C-alpha cells in the first residue's frame, strides 16, 4: 500500500475508535499475493471477498499479471480460470510456474454468457480461493453489454468469504463493484537489437524479443501516484 493510503486508513481507524470505542477496529481483509513484488508493495495483494480488475490494451502485461497471480495461488489453493475466448496458453503458464493440478480450466469458446454463468457457479460454490474471468481477447463492445446486475451477483457470491475474483479485460467493466482496479501499460519493448532488422550485419534472426517494461497504476480505490514498474522477460527454451 502507498504511504498516503496507509495514512488515510490510520486516520479513519482513529476517528471510528473515537466514535465507537475499541470495537470499531478495522479488521484487515485477507489479501492474495500477486507474486510481483512491486505490485504487492503497492496494493498489498488482491483483496479477499472482492472483485479485482486488471485492464489494459494488447501487450500491456495483463496476462503476465494473471499468470503470476495463478502461480502464487496454485501453490497452496485451488484456482479456477474461466477462459471466455479460449486464449489460455498452457506453455506460458508452465513457464510461469503454475501448478496445473490445482487449476481448473474452463474453456468457454467465445461464449460470454456461458463464461458469466460458469463464474457465478464457481463463486456460489465457494470452493476455489481464486476465480479468474479472462475477458482479455473479447472486444470492448461485447464487454459493455454485460449487465451491472452480473457484477452485483458476483460480489454477493464473494461476500463473507476470503475468495477473490480476478477479471482480465481491455476496459473496466465492473466499475464501482470492483474492490481494486489496476491499469496496465507497456512502457517499452526490449529487443536485443533495437531497430536492427534488415541491416547487413544484423540478420533478422539475430534480433530477439527479450522482454517488456511494464507499468501498473491503481485507479480504484484512488491512490495518488500509486504506480509500480516491473520487467517481464521472454522464457527461451
Amino acid at each position, binding site marked *: 500500500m502507498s504511504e498516503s493510503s496507509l495514512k488515510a486508513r490510520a486516520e479513519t481507524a482513529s476517528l471510528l475508535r473515537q466514535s465507537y470505542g475499541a470495537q470499531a477496529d478495522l479488521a484487515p481483509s485477507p489479501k492474495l499475493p500477486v507474486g510481483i513484488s512491486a505490485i504487492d508493495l503497492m496494493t498489498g495483494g488482491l483483496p479477499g471477498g472482492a472483485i479485482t480488475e486488471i485492464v489494459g490494451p494488447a501487450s500491456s502485461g495483463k496476462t503476465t499479471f494473471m499468470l503470476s497471480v495463478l502461480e502464487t495461488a496454485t501453490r497452496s489453493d485451488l484456482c479456477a480460470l474461466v477462459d471466455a475466448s479460449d486464449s489460455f496458453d498452457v506453455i506460458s503458464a508452465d513457464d510461469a510456474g503454475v501448478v496445473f493440478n490445482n487449476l481448473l480450466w474452463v474453456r468457454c469458446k467465445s461464449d460470454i454468457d456461458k463464461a458469466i454463468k460458469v463464474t457465478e457457479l464457481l463463486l456460489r460454490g465457494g470452493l476455489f480461493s481464486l476465480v479468474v474471468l479472462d475477458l482479455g481477447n473479447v472486444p470492448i463492445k461485447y464487454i459493455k453489454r454485460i449487465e451491472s446486475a452480473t457484477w452485483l451477483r458476483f460480489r454477493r457470491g464473494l461476500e463473507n468469504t476470503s475468495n477473490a475474483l480476478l477479471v482480465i479485460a481491455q476496459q473496466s467493466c465492473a466499475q464501482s463493484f470492483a474492490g481494486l482496479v489496476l491499469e496496465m501499460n507497456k512502457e517499452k519493448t526490449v529487443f536485443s537489437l533495437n531497430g536492427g532488422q534488415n541491416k547487413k550485419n544484423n540478420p533478422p534472426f539475430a534480433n530477439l524479443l527479450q522482454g517488456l517494461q511494464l507499468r501498473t497504476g491503481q485507479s480504484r480505490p484512488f491512490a495518488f501516484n500509486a504506480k509500480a514498474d516491473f520487467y517481464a522477460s*521472454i522464457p527461451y527454451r
Partner: protein
Amino acid sequence: MYASIFTSEAAGKNTLHKIACQFSPLIEEINDQTVVFDIEGTSMLIGTCRDVAKAIAATATEYDIVVNIAIARRPDTALLAAQFMSGITIILPGREAQHLSSLPIEALSSCLNSSHNKQKAFAEREAEQFADVIDTLLRWGIVTFKDFTRLSESSVSARLGPFGLKLHRYAKGIIDRPLNIKNKSAELDQSMDLDFPIDSLEPFSFVLHRLINQLCSEAKSSGLAVQELQLKLFLEDKTECERMLRLPFPTLDERSLLSHLMLVIKSDPPLSPIISLALSADPVKPRTAQPGLFEKGAPEPEKLQLTLSKIERLVGADNIGSPTILDTYRPDGIALKKFEVIRSTRSGSSSRGKLIAEKPKPSNPRIALRMFRPALPANVREISGCPTAVSAKTVEMQQGVRGSIVNFSGPWRTSGEWWGSTVWERDEWDIALGDGSLYKIYRDLRSNSWFIEGVYD
C-alpha cells in the same frame, strides 16, 4: 456338524442360500444347486441331526423345491452324500467310509468343484490330474469308493502321488477344511410403480428422493456406500430408458446423489411420461480420509463434483479439466485431464504415492502469450522475405489486427510429425506493430499461408 443341500431342479438364484440362511449364517455356496453350511449349535434350538434335516426339508417345501439333505462331520462328506444320495442322509462320525462306499469313483469330481479352488489355472491343472487318476483307477478295476478305500494310503501315495492320496482321503470322508464363506454383498434395489404418469421433473424429484433415501438407509445399515446408480424408467408408451450416474467417490449423501441424478435426467430427459421406476446400486466400501493436522482441508468432494457437473452441462465435458502438456513438440500440444484434488502430505508426496514436485519460482515474471484458437488467418506484406505489415479480419469474438511492423524477430523454423497426418512445418516470427502490440505470427510452409498465433501480453 455340517449340512448340505442339493437339488436337481433349476431352483431360482439364491433359493438354497435363503433356505440355509434360516439355519446358519456360515454358508458356502458351491453352485446354484448345492450349498453346505455349519449347523453347530442348532441342536439346542431344533434337536437332533434328524430333526434339523427334517426342518430343512420342511423349509425347502415352502420354497416348492425337492432337495437331498445330508448331515456329516465334515463339509465335503456332507456334499458327496447330498449330491449322490437321495432324501435325508445322516452320517455319524466314524462311519463316513461306510456311507460313501457305494458311490462311483467319478463322484470324487464334486470335491474338486468346491469353491475354494478359485484360480482358473489351478482348477484346470487339477481337472487334468483328476482325469489321469480316474483313468488309472478304472483300468485297475476300481469303480466304487469301497474299492478305492481298500487300498492302503502308502500304496496310493506311491502309485498316484499326493493328488491321488488326497482323493483317497475324500473317498474315506476324512478331509477336514473350513467353509469358504463369501460375504454376500447387500443388493441395493428399490422400485416404485406410480399411481399416475409423471411428466415433469419436479414431482419426479420427490419420488426419486424417496427411493434414494431408502437405498442409502439400506447401504448404511450394511456399513456400505454408493458410488454408482442405475435408474431404469418405464414409460407410458411401453418403452424403457436407462440412466447411469457414476461418481468418483463413494457417498451416502442423499441430497448430493439426488442433485447429480436430476442433472443427468435434465440433460437427457425421457421422451414420454414415467409410470414406473427402478433404482439400483452396487454397494462399495465407504471412503475414509485422515487429513493431516497442519494440512489445509480439501473442498468437500460432493460439493466439488456437483459444481463440476453443473459446469460440464454448460460447456461440455471436453472443455473442463486441468491442463496438461502432451509429450510432443507440436504447437499447442496440450490436453485437458479430469480435475481431481490431490492431497499432499506433510512430507511433500501425494496420497497417491506420486510426488508433486514444486516448480521453481522464476526470478522475473515471464511474458505470457494469449492464444488465438483457431489461429487468425492473416495477410502479411513482405519485403525481401521479411514481414512489413500485417492485417487480420475480426473473427467471431476475436478482435482484428492491423498495422505496420516496426520491429521483428525471426524466422524460427519448426516442423515435426512428418510421418503422419499431423505433420507441421512453419516459420515463426515475433513482430511489434506501430501501436505497441506484440504478436507471434507464422507462415505455414505447406500451404504458404500466414496466421497470427497469439499476442504477447
